[in-house]
């Protein structure tokens, strides 16, 4: 009898526990919206690589946002390679071997392509040198220009009585006098 009673109690409690768990799970499903089903690797992992690459056939369209079917397949290929354990660099090398350097977001740093990275800073440095030289040469006043009205020693309004009078006249007219 007592055995039966004990068994009944255990069954009773087990039922409550299972019931409560079921309610909690159901409540979780109802309260919690269904989150996106993320394949493995996720879209974000694929896009992180695709963002730095370009559609091999379109004009200047990054691979992560290219809307064509071909690009969708290439993104799937990236996912597949990631799933196989390839690194980002291996995937990029694979695409370069298949479609050429144009799939990369920047030219690779080798050979002629170094020009891309060297020329702009070099020209800026040349520009700096030119500016320094220009400033140096202009800081040596030419005797011909010393008396120029636009030169540094042109009289200011405070010094020239004519300019002072002109300014005063303008002020008076502005005030409507």
């Amino acid at each position, binding site marked *: 009898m007592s055995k039966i009673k004990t068994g009944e109690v255990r069954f009773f409690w087990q039922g409550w526990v299972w019931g409560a768990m079921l309610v909690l799970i159901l409540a979780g499903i109802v309260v919690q919206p*269904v*989150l*996106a089903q993320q394949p493995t690797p996720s879209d974000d992992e694929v896009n992180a690589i695709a963002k730095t690459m370009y559609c091999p056939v379109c004009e*200047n369209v990054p691979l992560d*946002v290219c809307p064509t079917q071909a690009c969708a397949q290439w993104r799937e290929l990236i996912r597949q390679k990631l799933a196989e354990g390839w690194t980002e660099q291996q995937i990029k090398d694979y695409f370069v071997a298949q479609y050429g350097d144009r799939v990369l977001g920047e030219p690779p740093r080798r050979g002629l392509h170094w020009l*891309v990275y060297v020329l*702009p800073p070099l020209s*800026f440095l040349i520009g700096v040198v030119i500016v320094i030289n220009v*400033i140096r040469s202009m800081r040596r006043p030419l005797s011909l220009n010393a008396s120029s009205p636009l030169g540094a020693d042109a009289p200011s309004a405070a010094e020239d009585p004519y300019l002072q009078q002109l300014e005063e006249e303008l002020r008076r*007219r502005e005030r409507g006098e």
Partner: protein
Amino acid sequence: MVAEIGFGALIVAFVVSIYGIVAGIYGARRHAEPWLESGRRAMLLTWPLITLAVLCLVALLVGGHYEVQYVYNVTSSFMPLYLKVTALWGGQAGSLVFWSWLMAAFASAVTLRKWDRDREFLPWVIVVTLVTLAFFLGLVIFVENPFVRFWQMPDGRQAVAMFAPRGALPLVPMEGRGLNPLLRHPGMILHPPMLYLGFVSFVIPYAFGIAALVTGRTDDRWIRITRRWTLVAWLFLSLGLILGSRWAYDVLGWGGYWGWDPVEIAAFMPWLSGTAFLHSVMIQEKRGLFKRWNMILIILTYALVIFGTFLTRSGVLSSVHAFAQSAIGPLFFGFIAITFLGSLGLLLYRWNDLRSEGVMTSLLSREALFLLNNLLFMGVLVVCFWGVIYPLISEIITGQKVTVGPSYYERSTGPLFAALLLLMGIAPLSAWGHSTLKTLGRALWKPLVASVVIVVGLWVGGIRAWSALLAFWLVALVSLVTLYEYYRAVVARHRRTGENYLRALWNLAGRNRRRYGGYIIHLGVVLMALGIIGIELFQTETQGTVQPGGSLRLGNYTMLFQRLDVFDTQDGRNVARAVVSVFKGDRYVGELHPRRDFFYDSQQTMTIPGVRSTMEDDFYVLLVDWQSSAQGITFKVYHNPLVNWLWVGGLVFILGTLVAAWPDREAEPTRARATQSLAAQRVRP
């Protein structure tokens, strides 16, 4: 008949342009006033003639005359009226006609000004503008004629020609292919015309610059005449770029506003040299320095304007092989080479006459800082130019195309833009002629301290990235310096005149529109910088596939996918439209409708984002895929903090340019009268 009238008008306009060039040169060489007047009238005549051609083309577009190849390529009966009209600049041939029309309008406007004081400029302004116009008209007539039609040959072949080949019958397609879906947007009304207006209006200061070189008038008169032209050109180009960014953000569906695409850069390059020119001419006006440099800048800007049109029209961007095969590409290339080398030759001829009249007295003077500003703008320009042409060089030398993408541009231009912002904070406080560390420090220390306090506040608030802190510091510094400059000037005027602060502000800006308009432009730039910092440094994104009832989370936002509606529209689209609810934290903040439009006529799709937009951030949802996955629908979601400050800044920027360019009608006569009166007093014993 309409096509014949339009084509005839273009031919007459071309002949009139050539005549105007000849009359201008002959009149100038022989000092023959009637020839000059005749050349001027020829220039005036071009605009009504090209207007007639434009009206004919618009009539064909609106009337659905698909026998005309251009009409067939860019319109369809599904398109609304406004798109049929704007299809005028939706294709290559039409946009060249439109370019010519705007060029003729600006050329005519120049002839309407009073020429009494600057008669010697007139013939060469006529020659330069008409040479440019004749080049574009020549392209339209001989290479890219928008009026050519389809013909059915007696042997069954189809032909495209302006006039009927022998024995051919007109061929009229039932329906057009329609405009590229990307162009079917209200932005199409304004963005291309603004860019083109910016392009053609820069031709006017260039024409005056060349006139000054030819005539040997090396004073700054040409700069003073073209000051407003330059500002107007700059205004239109800026508007075109801002509208283009907004269009890209709304339509192109990559969550950004600027992709460093060669076509974007093509429009950005003349803006860069034009901005350098706008600053540099002030040095010549105030201090008589850098006459040669200003000439170089305006020649460069003109070359970049034509180069920009060339880049987008020649096919050179798709491949050098496409360039070689296109008839238009080599012609553009030749024109740029001739005008650029010719202009430089002229500049070298006058090199010695263009010596600076003044001297530079301080490294911290405003002219020195403006020179630095020019160096930085040129640095950005070199990065852009090199990035655009390097893929072509690579293809020519190695036979292999490469891509020069945003990472190259952002890394290279980022420090230069930061330095430009810093200069914007310092230069307004320096004086023309002479500034020392002491005077500059005295003016700068208060805004500097306040900006540092703001950055410390941001650091305490949790921002740790040094790039973001540096960027915010620059934005704070420039804003505070500009506002402080306004404050000091308003208070000084209030004390001197007794005006209330608002009136003092109004009168202050009215008295020196260029300076205070410039400050408003600087404020616009920092607001835009705020938006750019937000999206460039703090943008986040995620992508996922969900079933109805499923959700995607990004930061504090949750997007709940409700349903997808797929339907046909009356204007020839198949629309897949998702309905999603957006929650910020637990709070429901609205419903968005990202969609994919498939255009039956052109067989192309377009992705339109659903955007929840506030001044704090944008929540930007794209429908990526709704067909291929059995697991549901794929969305891409972006969180773009602060991005709307970019557009607000754009509006402030345009307002500032309008203030700076606004004609000053009252001041000139007042000043002239005052000068006359004083001069009269002076000659009195």
